[in-house]
């Protein structure tokens, strides 16, 4: 360019070096502050994920030698009827829990948004979320158990003489029972998120709509829903991923080992790895789940462009 950089006076060089030293020192401090997060991420996410990917192509019982299996584990899982059952049950669970759970949470949030003492209700609805999932499962086990053992069945039979189904053991009902428990235990989280979303809507916008003659349904459809659509989208993504990862409550609530109706993908992963000691197969199933989750999430992100409004 023909521009000649003028030679710096010697006196100016020292502050420049000092600035570099400060930048280096700040870099070290930054690294130190970041260390806990980075180490945690590497130890508990990157390394296990990498190890699982490697294991998916190996045959390993957890103690002995690992041997190369290529794509055998994937092929075995994709042709295993148990895996098919697990995928189907997981999809059913997602279809039951996500729309019903989110719609219910939105309804409750809309109601709470109108009342005084929101904090109290928020705490009440949030209690199941902070309760141990095992405790929740045991409580629902007591409610839903069959015959004389179950609070629900016994009460209904004693009062009305109606024999209700065997909620936790009948293959046709078990996934519905799991869905009810899942919705109940996650409702509070979605209510709180929706409530937060509702409170970000400028009151002037609602008021303007009402002045223009919009009724409550029109206000909800044309103002509230578009305004909280990013929140709905976020909750949907999280709910779908959570339903794909359902395990702990199901493990305690029913015994999927003896009830194919409750076998989900994560139970299949656990069963293969920690009951059958087929860690390669288990990792392959986990990777298939990862791909499924990614695909569904990508579809959600694709669809959201048409329904989610990010402008305020």
């Amino acid at each position, binding site marked *: 360019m023909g521009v000649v950089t003028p030679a710096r006076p010697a006196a100016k060089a020292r502050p420049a070096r000092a600035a570099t030293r400060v930048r280096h020192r700040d870099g070290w401090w930054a690294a130190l*502050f970041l*260390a*806990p997060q980075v180490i945690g991420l590497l*130890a508990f996410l990157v390394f296990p994920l990498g190890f699982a990917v490697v294991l998916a192509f190996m045959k390993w019982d957890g*103690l002995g030698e690992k041997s190369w299996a290529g794509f055998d584990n994937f092929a075995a899982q994709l042709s295993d009827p148990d895996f098919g059952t697990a995928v189907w049950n997981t999809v059913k669970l997602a279809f039951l829990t996500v729309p019903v759970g989110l719609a219910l949470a939105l309804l409750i949030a809309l109601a709470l948004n109108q009342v005084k003492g929101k904090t109290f209700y928020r705490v009440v609805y949030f209690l199941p979320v902070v309760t141990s999932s095992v405790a929740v499962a045991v409580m629902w086990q007591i409610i839903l*158990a069959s015959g*004389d053992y179950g609070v629900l069945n016994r009460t209904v039979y004693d009062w009305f003489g109606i024999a209700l189904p065997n909620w936790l053991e009948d293959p046709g009902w078990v996934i519905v029972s799991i869905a009810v428990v899942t919705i109940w235990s996650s409702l509070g989280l979605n209510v709180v998120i929706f409530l937060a979303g509702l409170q970000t809507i400028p009151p002037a916008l609602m008021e303007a709509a009402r002045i223009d003659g919009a009724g409550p349904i029109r206000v909800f459809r044309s103002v509230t829903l578009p305004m909280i659509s990013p929140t709905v989208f976020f909750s949907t993504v999280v709910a779908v991923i959570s339903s794909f990862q359902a395990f702990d409550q199901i493990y305690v609530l029913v015994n999927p*080992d*003896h009830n194919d109706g409750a076998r989900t993908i994560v139970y299949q992963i656990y069963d293969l790895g920690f009951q059958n000691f087929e860690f390669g197969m288990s990792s392959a199933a986990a990777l298939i789940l990862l791909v499924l989750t990614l695909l569904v999430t990508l579809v959600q992100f694709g669809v959201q462009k048409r329904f989610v409004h990010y402008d305020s």
Partner: protein
Amino acid sequence: MSFPISKKALAAAALALTATVTAACSGSGGGTTGGGASAGGKVTIRWSTWGSAEDVALYKGFNDDFMKRHPNVVLKMETVPKYEDYHPKLLTQLTSKTAPDVFFVGDDNVGKFVAAGVLSPLNDKLAGPDSKSKPEDFSEGIYGGAKKDGQIYGVPNDTNPEVLWYGKKALKEAGITEDPAELNAAGKWTMAKYLEMNAKLKAAGKAGSLFWNWYGSTYSVIGGFGGKVWDGGRFVATTDPKSRKALETLAKGYADKTFLSADVLPASNGANTQFLKGTAGFFAGGRWMIDVVKKGGDLPNYDIVPFPSETGQPIPGAVAASYLALNKDSKNAKEAFTFLTEFVSKEGQLLRLKGGGAVPSVKGAEQIVLEGNYPAHAQTLLDVRDTGFANYPEEVAVPGLTKEINDHLLKVWTGKVAFEQGMTELQAIVDGKIG
């Protein structure tokens, strides 16, 4: 905006947090990898087991007694309530080198730990002067997969021989006049007679027998038909004609409800309830069944008999066993072995099995079973223990194989898979696993 805390202090806190989290996530520590002598010269021995609250209470009694006699040893017991949750945890601990010094291993899992080389060989130690029991104090058959090429890797803690419990009233209501235990004493307790009784119970609107879906029941029935399960390292249960006949009889019995699988019965009308109500004549189980029949309040109504045989002569029956094994990586092997040998010794078993539902594995502690005179033929439990077998070494050496066999058979029992197809698939599963 300025902060009163310096960057150095914050960084130190961040590092301390990292160290704490890392340490917290590195396992329970101690024992195998770091359980050396603590302050005061005491040695900590970690040991793990599964068990109910009642079992744990019995073990605590043993622990307290042991620590009184060995003041230099601190025992740290780690328990898991459910059997099916125990081995996954143990496997994880062994893989990460944080397993206890001494641990229980189930008969369906011991083979793979032996094959993996994580258990300490015990022959020399058991023959040594510090051993409180010798290898021959335990019946050969109950070592199962804990013994390989003559080397012992786990000592039977206690056992539970699989026998048939029967309700005398239920049998009588079905028009059965002969007593199974008396037939057995006369050498006339045959499979044909047993199936005849089951048919009569079915005709009377009852179930013939209740079985838990595990190798103990299934292989005992196969034995009763004169069949084999494993032969020359090969799984022959689906190919040996007598074994296949046994499995087909079971499948047909489950289909027409002559037999009921306890695993799939609803909680409201489970196996215990049905047996106590007299809607099933026989219930295969171990000595632990005493607690079940006690709940019925009619103890004299129940007695036991071994599984029948083809000819009426005694045959080896299945024995559920668990083993106490020494971690090969234990840093306190001497103290760990002292604990192990005392735990499985006659004195140890007399102390910890009193009031429980198990049968001692060691010879000389028979009074545990006989002193209550219940059931009337309690000696049967000891006879089956002395002549019986723990799960086949060939089977338990393959991780997860027993479970896969059981899972697949349950599909056949519940009619999800047709018998012929089920047998073909079962053979393929086993062949695929053993390679």
